[in-house]
């Protein structure tokens, strides 16, 4: 038995099941912030993570948006990367073999420019060893085709869900955008269309201006805001969605500490994703896991899932 597996056994209280996706703890690194895992493998033991959601994969490789792509703002950062990725085929042949060496749940985050694209990417990943779930990005604010246009319309989001569901046997997570009037409408729509879980929130659309030159800081003009600045918005949306759906909710948005992560769980998230925090500390995710463990000890909580949705109102 590998050391990681032994560790697992002693940590039954940290385990979380998301519609058949078994996580040794509720902490997943968020798509787009952790590359394909390998980028951070020198700094953090990937075996300790609950899961890794890899950089969004498209049918064909994508070059992404022209630079500059990032700008730090107060308490957050804007990015307009635009889903630069190697494409699903290269992911399977070049990136996945590395990830298979670790005892960690791999969530393939997928993206398409059309319904057919989403279905094709899902089909390519079905039955591939080492892929444990799909997370469907219908919420990228930085691409012209697809992305947000699917995620902002309940009908389109449901259609993507159905098309992907038809092509996969994996647990299906739909990643939702906060850039809508009522996120719970979209959540309900994808639940009814067969989603096994929802994850939220993706970045909030935003922009930043250089007053000296009167130009936008990002070449793409607008970008997606992440980081601690968005946490209250994310928390509210997770709470709101958790009231409205029966499927598990994965919460994210500005989680920097174990306390942040636990707040999301209290608000109704069954698992959490850590994103921007990894940029300032590659070990952020494992430190958050340690902090959760301490919280459980201090508060005599036997199972982490016992705190899910325990918000007193």
């Amino acid at each position, binding site marked *: 038995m590998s050391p990681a597996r032994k560790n697992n056994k002693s940590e039954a209280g940290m385990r979380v099941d998301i519609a058949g996706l078994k996580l040794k703890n509720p902490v997943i690194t968020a798509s787009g*912030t952790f*590359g394909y895992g390998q980028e951070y493998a020198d700094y953090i033991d990937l075996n300790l993570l609950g899961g890794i959601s890899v950089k969004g994969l498209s049918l064909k490789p994508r070059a992404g948006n022209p*630079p*500059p792509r*990032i700008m730090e703002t107060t308490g957050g*950062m804007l*990015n307009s990367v635009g889903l630069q990725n190697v494409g699903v085929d290269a992911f399977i042949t070049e990136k996945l073999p590395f990830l298979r060496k670790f005892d960690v749940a791999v969530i393939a985050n997928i993206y398409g420019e059309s319904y057919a694209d989403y279905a094709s990417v899902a089909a390519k990943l079905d039955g591939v060893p080492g892929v444990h779930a799909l997370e469907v990005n219908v919420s990228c604010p930085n691409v012209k085709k697809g992305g947000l246009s699917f995620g902002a319309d309940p009908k389109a989001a449901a259609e993507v869900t159905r098309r992907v569901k038809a092509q996969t046997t994996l647990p299906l997570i739909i990643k939702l955008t906060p850039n809508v009037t009522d996120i719970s409408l979209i959540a309900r729509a994808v639940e009814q269309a067969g989603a096994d879980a929802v994850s939220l929130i993706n970045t909030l659309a935003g922009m930043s201006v250089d007053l000296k030159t009167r130009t936008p800081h990002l070449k793409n003009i607008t970008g997606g805001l992440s980081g601690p600045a968005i946490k209250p918005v994310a928390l509210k949306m997770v709470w709101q969605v958790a009231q409205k759906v029966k499927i598990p909710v994965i919460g994210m948005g500005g989680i920097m500490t174990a306390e942040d992560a636990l707040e999301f769980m209290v608000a109704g998230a069954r698992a959490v994703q850590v994103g921007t925090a990894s*940029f300032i500390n*590659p070990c952020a995710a494992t430190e958050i896991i340690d902090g959760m463990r301490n919280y459980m000890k201090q508060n005599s909580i036997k199972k982490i899932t016992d705190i899910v949705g325990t918000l007193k109102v």
Partner: protein
Amino acid sequence: MKDIYVGLVTGNDNLKSNYFLMKVLLPAGFGDPQPGQFVMVRIVGLKDPFLSRPLSIYSFSRGKAGCIIELLYRVAGRGTGIMAGLIEGSEVEVLGPLGQSYAVDPQKKDIVFIAGGIGVAPLSLLAGYLCQTVCRDASSMTFYLGAQTADEIVGLELLRRYCYRVIVCTDDGSMGEKGQVTGIFKKDMKKFSPADTALYACGPKPMLKALAKMTDGRYMCQVSLEERMACGVGACAGCVTAIKEPAGTTAYKRVCADGPVFDLEKVIWE
């Protein structure tokens, strides 16, 4: 497993105008940097701005107490502005050394460095490496250092130790020759045969672009680029630059992980 090191600031001096030199004492486990590599530096506990700042390594030494890295930096915004206020005894988190280093070709007879402003930082480490580790003769190394004004010319003392010829120029003529560094180099260019010379450059984009135009792929020329970064390790793809690929296609390469050093002829300028 690599660590994020907590370093102790042992000095942080204002050299000139907005140029600072920070000395950081790091644990012995910090790896030896290769010239051209950088570190991500973050002030411990700072919440705003919260991202680390990428800084070139200007010098490195190992002693009994650990390693000392020197970071020569220019205050460009709020992050580096706060950094400039760090006093001795402050703590910084250091991730690195990161990125690809300059390639060294021992066959080249002449080494020419072309730096603009703060671009002197990584090239000074390279000149020191060539002088002390590779034991290149100082007479084979020429350093062109330019800036807008004398206020932005820093690091001369070390350069003069490493390189036989150090040519200084400023746009306003307040120090050295008057003119832009690329223009001054261009006048001398015929002294350096493309086959026997390696060029290394670092500086603002217009300078590198001008250099690309005048050398036109005839020289082996490597440049290190500067970009805003978030992760520093290649995960976020925030710091990309357009690079020509062997197949003739263009790809966005990550300055942090695929660079910061690139072959000048492969860089695509907008």
